[in-house]
């Protein structure tokens, strides 16, 4: 079972690396969205510092959501998704592999670059670590929840816009606790409570989301 998982992760990452532009697009989207906000609200450092956690998290949410289309659509189009479903391994395992690959491609680069973007917003260096940790816990959860929406809309017309309507309301808790953690650390409070809840949500998502995604895939491809 672990071997299957490894195969799926390496396959998806390899496929993404053959088309590096796609990976870079998500990352640049994140950077651009985050850079647009100061142009919109003005360069006042105090205002930007207060808004930074929210802006960075909303940008991360949107970037993660935009890349959801890549999760199943290409495999559905060339038929390999059906082959994966016929495999004797449990479908939830396949889903976990694909979600892990999705996070490695679209989540991890974002986690790594976010502290640099945060400097543009004059976020105190002390809270950069919290931002990093919160994104590290939160972005896998975004991929897990998003996978449910992506699986439900496989092969549906207008799937890209639809998936945002389905997935964004479910992202709310991640946004609240993720931005809350960074917010707490900038105001000198302890962020560990937020991070713990984020971790708890991640564990809950890891148990429930692959299972729901597998059910959604079966519905979409029957």
């Amino acid at each position, binding site marked *: 079972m672990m071997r299957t998982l490894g195969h799926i992760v390496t396959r998806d990452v390899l496929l993404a690396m053959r088309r590096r532009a796609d990976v870079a697009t998500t990352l640049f989207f994140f950077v651009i969205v985050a850079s647009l906000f100061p142009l919109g609200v003005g360069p006042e450092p105090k205002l930007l510092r207060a808004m930074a956690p929210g802006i960075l998290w909303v940008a991360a949410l949107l970037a993660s959501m935009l890349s959801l289309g890549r999760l199943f659509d290409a495999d559905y189009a060339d038929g390999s998704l059906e082959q994966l479903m016929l495999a004797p391994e449990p479908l939830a395992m396949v889903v976990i592999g694909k979600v892990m690959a999705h996070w490695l491609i679209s989540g991890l680069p974002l986690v790594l670059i976010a502290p640099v973007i945060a400097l543009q917003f004059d976020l105190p260096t002390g809270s950069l670590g919290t931002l990093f940790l919160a994104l590290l816990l939160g972005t896998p959860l975004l991929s897990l929840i998003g996978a449910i929406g992506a699986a439900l809309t496989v092969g*549906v017309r207008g799937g890209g816009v639809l998936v945002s309507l389905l997935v964004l309301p*479910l992202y*709310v808790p991640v946004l609240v606790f993720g931005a809350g953690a960074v917010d707490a650390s900038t105001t000198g409070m302890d962020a560990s409570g937020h991070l713990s809840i984020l971790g708890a949500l991640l564990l809950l998502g890891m148990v429930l989301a692959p299972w729901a995604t597998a059910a959604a895939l079966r519905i979409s491809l029957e």
Partner: protein
Amino acid sequence: MKLNWFKYASPATFYPLAGKLIPWFALSAAGFTFAGLYLSFFVAPTDFQQGESYRIIFIHVPAAWMSMFIYIVMAGWAAAGLIFNTRLSSMMASALAPTGALFTFIALWTGAFWGKPTWGAWWVWDARLTSELILLFLYLGFLALHAAIDDTRRADRASALLALVGVVNVPIIYFSVKWWNTLHQGASVSMTMAPKMAATMLLGMLIMALACWMYSIAAALARVRCIILEREQQAEWLAKLTKEPA
């Protein structure tokens, strides 16, 4: 005599039953609305703090109750449709969704009208308001997903799964928003009701809630009849039923 619990699980038997039930529910909805509006406008006393504007409560609170309750009922029907594979359950789920969305919208809209005179703002980012707004988004997502898939069987099952995911998420969303709100200490308004409600106020509100119940059932039944007509076009029983002079 053995009772057949599943007799009305078939659209063929349910369609005429729903037709017979609708007038009763519609009539009692009208009756309760009349009684409730009379109580709330003429009998219930004026609130000593909020004056006359508090009377919005008589539509606002029942609508908010219904919006949440219908989501749970809808998810229940959706689950039944997924588990037992009964056509009628999925039809009920999709018949309830527009009514639920309507009540969510009414709750938000009347809330804005109530907020302006009492807090001086159309909208505050209070935990309840925010989670009600997200509930509206969940309803819209359900409706949009159902509308986007042409194959009705797949549409039913996909949106049923979405409704179930939503039910798991609603408490998480509610508590996260609540905590977010207390942390930010945004609006300093308390949403708790005036110390003690007069008995007539409470009675008026409960009767209005009953009216909303009756309306929801009547509307859902009428809508499910339309859905049955749409989906069972080819069915023999329907041809027989429509040929018969009513």
